[in-house]
């Protein structure tokens, strides 16, 4: 029986539910932006969304394609310069959650968005770090959202763009990083959290209809499951409705012929 929602919708709704009204959230572009705005449009209307272009407290009507669409600035409480954003707001520890996507993540939640293969002779050159290295270091905690696959969930990342837990244990604190780091990974199959001691990413909840074998097959290391493994609650009708409206508005706004229009 089809569940009436896609695995992508399951992932985004689940991610949105992890946020609360009191959060101050540094939002990555793409799926993190969808999840954060869904939270704002449903259970957390007063959440503060911050994009690295300098927009603070933004309330976009449609999802931005880029991190600096005009929509973000027009609907923001204020817009600051990029140096101010990284110095006063991120570096100084004023942001509670960093919400990131990832091309590749490893068992200790180190993220690679730089290269596949060797740095100097890459097989695939990815966009790079952008704001992520410092977001992952200086937000109180980081959530990561990404589709689950054995190519993306690997034993060791090819390149550590953004440090998670290194080789596990106390590596993070030993480096001088006193924030919590990546505390939650949301995929289209499950939720993962770092083990409290070893810091290895461990499955804490399976999405409805997903079994352990599927997660094992889509994870590049011998993945562990917590003892009291839960089932992630499925999306409610009203969440799906708000999400689908948002995605439709967004698709329409970015369609050919809609761009570059005069405004004055």
């Amino acid at each position, binding site marked *: 029986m089809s569940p009436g929602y896609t695995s992508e919708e399951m992932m985004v709704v689940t991610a949105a539910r992890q946020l609360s009204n009191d959060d101050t959230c540094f939002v990555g572009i793409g799926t993190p932006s969808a999840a954060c705005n869904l939270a704002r449009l449903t259970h957390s209307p007063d959440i503060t969304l911050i994009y690295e272009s300098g927009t603070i407290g933004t309330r976009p009507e449609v999802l931005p394609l880029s991190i600096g669409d005009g929509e973000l600035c027009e609907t923001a409480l204020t817009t600051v310069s*990029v*140096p101010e954003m*990284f110095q006063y707001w991120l570096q100084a520890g004023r942001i509670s959650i960093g919400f990131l996507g990832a091309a590749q993540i490893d068992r200790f939640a180190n993220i690679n968005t*730089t290269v596949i293969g060797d740095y100097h002779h890459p097989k695939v050159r990815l966009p790079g770090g*952008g704001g992520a290295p410092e977001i992952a270091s200086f937000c109180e905690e980081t959530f990561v959202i990404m589709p689950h696959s054995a190519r993306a969930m690997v034993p060791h990342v090819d390149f550590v*763009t953004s440090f998670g837990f290194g080789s596990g244990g106390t590596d993070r604190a030993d480096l001088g990083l006193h924030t919590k780091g990546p505390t939650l990974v949301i995929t289209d199959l499950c939720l993962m959290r770092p083990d409290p001691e070893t810091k290895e990413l461990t499955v804490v909840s399976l999405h409805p209809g997903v079994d352990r074998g599927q997660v094992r097959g889509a994870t590049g290391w011998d993945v562990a499951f917590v003892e009291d493994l839960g089932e992630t609650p499925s999306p409610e009708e009203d969440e799906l409705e708000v999400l689908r409206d948002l995605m439709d508005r967004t698709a329409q706004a970015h369609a050919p012929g809609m761009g570059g229009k005069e405004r004055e």
Partner: protein
Amino acid sequence: MPRMTSLSDAIATHVHDGDTVCMEGFTHLIPFAAGHEVIRQRLRDLTVIRMTPDLIYDQLIGAGCVARLVFSWGGNPGVGSLHRLRDAVENGWPRTLEIEEHSHAAMANAYWAGAAGLPLALFRGYLGSGLSEVNESIRFLDDPFTGERLAAVPAIRPDVTVIHAQRADREGNVLIEGIVGVQKEAALAARRAVVVTVEEVVDDLRAPSHNSVILPGWSVDAIAEAPGGARPSYAHGYYTRDNAFYTEWDAISRDRNRFQEWLTVEVLGGSQ
């Protein structure tokens, strides 16, 4: 007071082969018209600096103007890869491209240090990141007061900075509103020249607040009117970002021949 001039004259006067050039604008107000003029004037061996190379540097790289790129996020925002950048890094086409790669926090701090006339920027960052292993300009220093380990990078000091703004008045005072990015810092970090293209030169700036003039005329070297000069990015209050073109760029730039055809028709004016 800056010289009020044409775009072609501003680039010919201030940008030379081998220069280090910074063309900033964080998604907003990207100086595309000026970038295209650099391509038309066939400048070579440039070091180009931008936090997000975006389509503007993808085009400069594909056109063979660039020897070295300093950057912190090299994607097509919300779309995917910059294929001309990738082709240069992965295959050395149309020429080999040296890269110096940072994080946004590092570059934002390095611009700030450049504008402040400091030799380096100190900040919290890069702890545990592999970038410090592949980029020799990333170092660490211990704070002499607390012992905290801080990242250090050299200040950004380009020969020339080029930015696009909404308006300038006839004295060359420059107004920017909306997402202000790092343009003020990038302009004040320039060693030799600051070139500003604007949507319009006006008698009265119609400043919406007392804080929207970001550069007094005496800190700028050349102003050139270039209406639409930020397209396909945008100019707040004038036109919106052409998101559809950013999406189309993926297909245009993926293929060398299609890119060259685009370059010939859209930038070189069919002259090649």
